[in-house]
């Protein structure tokens, strides 16, 4: 039997490298119609009148009246329409669907549609949203979602404090920039709707169709096609193009394809939440933090999307890897008339970790202490509780991780000799971080109730049926390995196709670093039971997730285990700054991760390297902003993501710390590699400049501002 961590050939490798894998936009049919979405050009307005040109035969324009059921995207709150109903709340919001055979003719129709708007006062910032909370349709109370929680007795300890340190940090938007824009192809077959698409969560789409058309689930079939990257951008958002594409197919009776072009994808689809985070720490005479007060504000955009859950993760992660026994945390997500902020790899973690890591470093520097030493003194250790007072179910290895990354990178040695070297400024920075894996709180049990199905056929092959989507992260390979290893059969005898809701039960969305941890564990349990019944000709095993006895969560007070499992890591980044261009050049990247047992080293390496580079983009390069709700970056030329030249190959080390509950000891991985990158870079820049870095991305313009800002 091979070691589970040894790499195997991915089961999607041949199709992808040979160009045979059919993405949703590659599907062709003689009768197929194309669809395009006509979008709002106004930030916030009432629609007075829509004037359509005379339509050639075979061309149609649909609006919200054509949606027979509930015109609301089913996600946490029912606030976002599939097609605007007389009012628009952001530039790029879908209003009409234009259908026909020829894309040029469709574009002609699009250019001749005119809409008379009555502009309404628009909100651009969190501050404006708080001052004028009356103008929205966002979540339940129209303009905001707010939470708070406390731990210990913060007020008592705040009064006793000898020293107080405070910081305020801002983080920007991030666009997912998956290489494949949103794509769907739908058709009606025998009175059923069949949806082929690029997505992370096939059952979110099923739910959307049930809602929008009032159809019974038995008439809805959603099939995930090979998906050209997701990163959270294809979690909740695909419900919109999927339902609009299905609407076209249902109304015309013909196959319909809806593929976004890059500009509309960047303008109109979800982004990572911009944040404004304030942290105040209270220290005793021994320089120990005895209390913390944290205030988090997220820019939610026009509709609530997943803002509530992202906000929860941001506030639960706000103390990072430190044991803060007296704590006050408040958080809000606020409506603005801009593109919707929602899920993005890390899901609120990157904002929180940037703030806490920089704040801890700033306190250390103010106390004239080594940042790593100061952090180490506050590390979570075995027996400590999380910010929400949950127990950690596995050993915490932060000391070992920190020591390993320090040794590998020479951080402590180099830190003394950074700064000016000739004209060049050199710096080295460090971050230590964690990521809660799985759905927040008791979501796995209360909301998802994941179900998986494993079949053994007469010929001895075994087939996996789950709704987990292969979005590049290798899930079809890792889940197959878990099953084959448990059954003791060759991997070639385990079949795993792309999810098709006709055959695959709802094993939950492909998000939250939960697939290997939760779905993989359930499959392993199926395989254990199947092994006992191996002599039977055909065996079907179905398992449903049950909330473990040793976890507890109170969703009212936010107390207990905020996540079922945690992964941990450390990053060190060495940089220099070109004094002429103010550009940060990264010279070295050292990383250490504790992800339990790695399930396939190659796949793990791919997740780590890709997450790191996406994190470098977030921390250094990727700028997205709006002027009066209009995105300034509308293409991959202006929204610049990392290329092959931008960052060196990282050093990666894994700290083996098998988990009790994960399959073969595995924990979650997908998000962890992105959450700690920005603070490591910002810390390195801060070290090079001798100035506080308070926002990301750390662009050349920002560095110039810092350098020209006196002392």
């Amino acid at each position, binding site marked *: 039997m091979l070691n589970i961590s040894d790499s195997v050939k991915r089961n999607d490798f041949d199709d992808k490298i040979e160009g045979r894998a059919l993405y949703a936009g590659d599907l062709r049919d003689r009768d197929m119609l194309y669809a395009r979405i006509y979008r709002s050009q106004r930030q916030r307005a009432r629609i007075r009148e829509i004037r359509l040109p005379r339509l050639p035969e075979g061309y149609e324009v649909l609006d919200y009246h054509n949606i027979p059921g509930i015109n609301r995207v089913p996600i946490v709150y029912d606030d976002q329409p599939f097609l605007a109903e007389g009012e628009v709340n952001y530039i790029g919001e879908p209003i009409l669907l234009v259908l026909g055979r020829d894309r040029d003719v469709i574009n002609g129709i699009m250019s001749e549609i005119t809409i008379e708007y009555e502009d309404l006062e628009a909100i651009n910032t969190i501050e404006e949203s708080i001052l004028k909370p009356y103008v929205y349709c966002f979540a339940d109370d129209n303009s905001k979602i707010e939470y708070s929680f406390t731990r210990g007795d913060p007020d008592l300890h705040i009064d006793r404090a000898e020293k107080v340190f405070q910081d305020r940090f801002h983080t920007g938007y991030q666009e997912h920039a998956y290489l494949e824009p949103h794509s769907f192809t739908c058709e009606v077959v025998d009175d059923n709707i069949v949806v082929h698409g690029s997505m992370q969560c096939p059952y979110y789409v099923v739910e959307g169709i049930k809602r929008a058309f009032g159809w019974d689930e038995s008439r809805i079939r959603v099939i995930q096609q090979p998906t050209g990257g997701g990163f959270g951008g294809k979690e909740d958002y695909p419900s919109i193009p999927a339902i609009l594409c299905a609407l076209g197919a249902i109304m015309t009776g013909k196959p319909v394809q809806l593929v976004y072009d890059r500009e509309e994808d960047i303008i109109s689809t979800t982004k990572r939440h911009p944040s404004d985070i304030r942290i105040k720490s209270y220290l005793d005479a021994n320089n120990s933090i005895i209390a913390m007060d944290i205030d988090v504000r997220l820019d939610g955009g026009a509709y609530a999307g997943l803002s509530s859950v992202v906000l929860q993760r941001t506030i639960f992660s706000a103390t990072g890897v430190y044991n803060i026994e007296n704590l006050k945390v408040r958080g809000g997500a606020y409506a603005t008339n801009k593109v919707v902020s929602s899920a993005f790899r890390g899901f609120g973690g990157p904002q929180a970790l940037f703030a806490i890591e920089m704040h801890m470093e700033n306190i250390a520097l103010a106390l004239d202490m080594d940042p790593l030493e100061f952090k180490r003194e506050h590390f979570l250790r075995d027996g400590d509780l999380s910010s929400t007072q949950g127990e950690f179910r596995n050993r915490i290895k932060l000391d070992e991780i920190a020591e390993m990354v320090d040794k590998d990178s020479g951080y402590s040695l180099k830190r003394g000799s950074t700064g000016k070297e000739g004209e060049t400024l050199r710096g080295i920075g460090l971050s230590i971080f964690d990521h809660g894996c799985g759905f927040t709180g008791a979501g796995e049990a209360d909301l998802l109730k994941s179900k998986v199905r494993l079949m053994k056929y007469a010929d001895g092959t075994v087939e996996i049926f789950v709704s987990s989507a292969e979005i590049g992260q290798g899930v079809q390979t890792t889940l197959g390995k878990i099953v084959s290893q448990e059954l003791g059969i060759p991997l070639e005898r385990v079949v795993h196709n792309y999810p098709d809701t006709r055959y695959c039960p709802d094993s939950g969305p492909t998000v939250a670093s939960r697939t290997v941890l939760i779905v993989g564990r359930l499959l392993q349990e199926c395989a254990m039971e199947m092994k006992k019944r191996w002599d039977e000709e055909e065996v079907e095993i179905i398992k449903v997730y049950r909330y473990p006895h040793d976890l507890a969560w109170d969703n009212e007070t936010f107390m207990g285990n905020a996540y079922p499992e945690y992964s941990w890591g450390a990053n060190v980044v060495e940089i220099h700054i070109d004094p002429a261009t103010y550009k940060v050049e990264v010279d070295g990247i050292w990383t250490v991760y504790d992800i339990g047992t790695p399930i396939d080293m*190659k796949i793990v390496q791919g997740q780590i390297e890709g997450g790191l580079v996406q994190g470098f983009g977030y921390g250094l390069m990727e700028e997205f902003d709006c002027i009066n709700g209009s995105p300034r970056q509308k293409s991959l030329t202006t929204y610049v993501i990392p290329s092959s030249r931008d960052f060196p190959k990282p050093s990666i080390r894994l700290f083996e710390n098998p988990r009790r509950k994960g399959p073969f000891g595995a924990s979650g991985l997908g998000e962890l590699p992105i959450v700690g990158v920005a603070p490591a870079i910002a810390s390195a820049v801060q070290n090079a400049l001798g100035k506080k870095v308070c926002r990301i991305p750390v662009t050349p313009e920002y560095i110039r501002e810092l350098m020209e800002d006196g002392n």
Partner: protein
Amino acid sequence: MEIKFTLNGEQVTIIDEPTRRLLDVLRDNLGLTGAKEGCGEGECGSCAVLMDGRLVNSCMVPAFTVEDRDILTIEGFRDQERFKAISRGFEKAGSVQCGFCTPGFVMAAEALLRQNPHPTEEEIIAAIEGNLCRCTGYSMIVEGIMIASREGDGLW
């Protein structure tokens, strides 16, 4: 307009607007969907093909300019020995994740190795600069091309 060119070793004739993009000709007129549209403005390389042995972004090539040219796409290249070497390199290095950019990177690797069968790491990094990947972080693709060059020695 009638446009004749060589596609994957065979003569083809298409009738279409002269300004139609080569990418649309390949995907819509000829049903070859290996080249993908990632950006539509020559920035990402997902639609890369070889034109007379040179790497081009087919979304930036008007159809009339391919008259009498030789076009190689992933569908033609995948049967060649050199493809197999690149494929083996990519497999060993773990260069493929979501796969959407992959055919473009394979064509970029072929264009490089035709010019320079033994590239250094820096030369590979420069050669794939015009291809964007959001999954891998690139170093595993660089390694894949390096392995292909080494193990496919003599093919280029």
